[in-house]
């Protein structure tokens, strides 16, 4: 007599979690650097999350294909792995390529040159000149920023 054993294949949580961590790696960029500004210039926290995602996906895929009888994920595994790789590529492109599409600094005023005077409007509507800022022989740090929009 043949005993039919129906083994319910277990849920491959590693590939699902791996993909979840990859999504987290992307969406956490802004909230993380808002709290820890060092992660803004080089997103090491996000890259570490991608590394963790990669590990989980690799482990999940390995199980899906070596333990076919007991473990699921032969479809979801590769799909999530490809999606996660796409997320990594997108993230890396955004932070390392697109964000660096800046004009060359050739035209910027150089150290030793006289700073251009200006009259600009402050947030309260009053005009402010560079000479006013320098009053009292003060040193001035000008921070040019992209704006709030």
């Amino acid at each position, binding site marked *: 007599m043949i005993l039919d054993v129906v083994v319910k294949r277990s849920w491959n949580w590693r590939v699902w979690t791996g993909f979840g961590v990859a999504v987290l790696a992307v969406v956490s960029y802004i909230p993380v650097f808002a709290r820890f*500004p060092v992660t*803004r*210039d080089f997103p090491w926290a996000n890259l570490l999350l991608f590394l963790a995602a990669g590990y989980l996906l690799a482990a999940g895929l390995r199980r899906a294909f070596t333990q076919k009888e007991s473990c699921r994920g032969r479809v979801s595994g590769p799909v999530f792995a490809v999606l996660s790789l796409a997320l990594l590529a997108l993230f890396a492109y955004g*932070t390392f390529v697109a*964000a*660096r599409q*800046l*004009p060359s*600094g*050739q*035209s*910027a*005023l*150089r*150290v*030793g*040159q*006289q*700073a*251009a*005077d*200006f009259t*600009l*409007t*402050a*947030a*309260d*509507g009053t005009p*402010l000149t*560079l000479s006013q*800022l*320098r009053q009292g*022989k*003060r*040193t*001035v*740090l*000008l*921070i*040019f*920023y*992209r*704006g*709030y*929009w």
Partner: protein
Amino acid sequence: MRSFEQRLPDFAARGVAVVAISVDSPKESLDLSRSQGYTFPLLSDPNAATIRAYGVIHEHGGEEGRDIARPAEFLLDSSGTIRWEHLSESVLARLRPETVLQAIDGMSPPVMR
């Protein structure tokens, strides 16, 4: 700029006035100052004339192709001469206030009064 707000006392102790410049309108600057608690002046350069004069324009870098400033910093001494500058290589990268403070402390002749 939040980190600069936090280190304002260190800049004040060195006789350095901190001001920020962008193409934002005074109204937008006011909203930003209020929401972030900035106490240093945010100056409005809507036509980017000053931004261009300093050579830090990023053409079509803003929303709807608007010309905006690239992230950059200039330290001017009391005679108005540029003593130190920094241009960010990435729109995401920002200068840390500690870097400027160290540069100020290491300057010869000193920029301090």
